């Protein structure tokens, strides 16, 4: 039995027009310390799978088993980085972390404060601890959200399009930031992230789960990424394996690669 086991997962919702199946027949075994990306078009049920692992959604059929235990609801063994940061705007950066740590971690108040300080320093935001989220830039907010998820020291880190709202430069920095934290933690955290970005998936993950288009989407293919770590953004793009994987993913996700593919004649 692997660390995280998704078996025959199906999730459907009742709607006025009848049952709507978001995803079905999802089978996935994830090892401890793996970084997995889930990639697919909008509305293909990526978030649904992540929410099932998070325990925010209950499977209609099948099961999600973490560490030999059936997931029945959200728990401190899984930290979530939400798509839109979801910081509480009336609490300071420090309090945003502290309330979560205070809620999840057992220990003295002194210890909890130490955890908060350590995690804020890890994402270099300790000097901004008294600011409100509204006073931070997008990248800083995302770092707070990541620090918050790390602060409860979860075995699994779930990230829903964590860098989707960031500009390309900040995105690059944040990807490195996550890899840094993962390494600082002896690569023991399992990271499952949703992305739209093929380059990002290739740079970060060990395996990339490609989903079919929804509704009732299934896994199209699982692409293994054997690029050596630590990965260097400039170096890996020159590797033949990278180019091969990128082409493979492009073919899995996109049908047309030029206007000629779309049946248009290009006139010179």
């Amino acid at each position, binding site marked *: 039995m692997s660390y995280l086991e998704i078996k025959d997962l199906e999730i459907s919702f009742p709607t006025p027009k009848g049952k709507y199946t978001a995803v079905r027949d999802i089978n996935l075994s994830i090892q401890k310390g793996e970084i997995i990306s889930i990639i697919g078009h909008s509305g293909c049920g990526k978030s649904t799978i992540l929410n099932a692992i998070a325990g925010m959604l209950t499977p209609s059929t099948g099961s999600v088993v973490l560490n030999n235990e059936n997931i029945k609801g*959200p728990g*401190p063994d899984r930290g979530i980085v*939400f798509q839109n940061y979801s910081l*509480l*705007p*009336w609490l300071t950066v420090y309090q945003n972390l502290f*309330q*979560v740590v205070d*809620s999840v971690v057992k220990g003295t108040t002194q210890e909890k404060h130490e955890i908060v300080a350590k995690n804020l320093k890890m994402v270099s935001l300790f000097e901004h601890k008294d600011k*409100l989220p509204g006073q931070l830039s997008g990248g800083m907010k995302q770092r707070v959200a990541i620090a918050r998820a790390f602060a409860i020291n979860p075995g699994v880190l779930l990230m829903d399009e964590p860098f989707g709202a960031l500009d390309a430069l900040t995105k690059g920095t944040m990807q490195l930031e996550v890899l840094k934290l993962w390494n600082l933690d002896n690569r023991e955290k399992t990271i499952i992230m949703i992305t739209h970005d093929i380059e990002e998936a290739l740079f970060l993950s060990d395996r990339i789960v490609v989903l079919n288009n929804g509704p009732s989407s299934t896994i199209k293919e699982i692409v293994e990424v054997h690029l050596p770590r630590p990965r260097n953004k400039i170096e890996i793009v020159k590797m033949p394996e990278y180019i091969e994987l990128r082409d493979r993913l492009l073919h899995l996700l996109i049908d047309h690669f030029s206007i000629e593919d779309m049946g248009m004649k290009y006139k010179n």
Partner: protein
Amino acid sequence: MSDRDTLTIGTFEEAKTASVATARKQVIRNEKLSALIEKTITKSKSLFLASLGLIIVGGLWELLSSITKDALPGPIATLTVLYEMVSDPFYDYGPNDKGIGLQLFNSIKTVLLGFCLGSLVAIPIGILMGASTICKQIFYPIVQLLKPVSPLAWFPIGLVVFKDTGLATIFIVFITSLWSTLINTSFGIASLPQDHKNVAKAFGFSKMRYLTKILIPFSLPHIITGLKLSISVAWLVIVAGEMLSGGAGIGFFVWDSWNALSLEKVISAIIIIGIVGLLFDRLFTYIESKVAYKA
């Protein structure tokens, strides 16, 4: 290159840095000064425009007064009476002759009592209505039915139930204070975004933490806005209420002055009522700004 040269260059660099620093300080000082000047100009400009408005209204008032041949007292006559009223506000020569301060104090007491009681009822019900669809379905039709009713219509019922005009007046203020607070509170609670709920769910917040760190901070601005609307309507209603109930308060004072044919006193009372209403509004606007947050 000799030592002397380097030394000279070094000193030169230092001197340059120092002069740059001084210049920068000078620039900052100038910026601060010009910001201050700009602020003063803006302030005096708005002060000037506000007094311009007062002068226009005063002029029209004076004109109206001269057209009616002083049946409507002019600004000077009124302000003289107002000054007399304000300079001895707390005299008490029996039930029909009390200083304006005592009357005002009475009205404010009634409004605050009714308003506080109303809020104590409206906020919890608003929370229930916002949090549960069933509660909303139970209470919302009643709210919709009763909200448009003038609070004065409740006065006879207050009299029958409490057999006391003072208590009946508090009762109508109580009724008045319910609606805006109730509706705003329930709206605030109901509009809590799923994102915030998800945070509580994902990180296992207890009921208490959810209430104090998410639900209340989120809905507080809405609740305060409701309270602000409620107290402004309550202050509107108290004048009419006291005209009905009689005996005490600023509304009674207006009616009593009218009966004594002292329009100067009526207009003075109007000015005072306006100022107190403005102060209530300012107070709640201040509280609003304190609990507001930027998303």
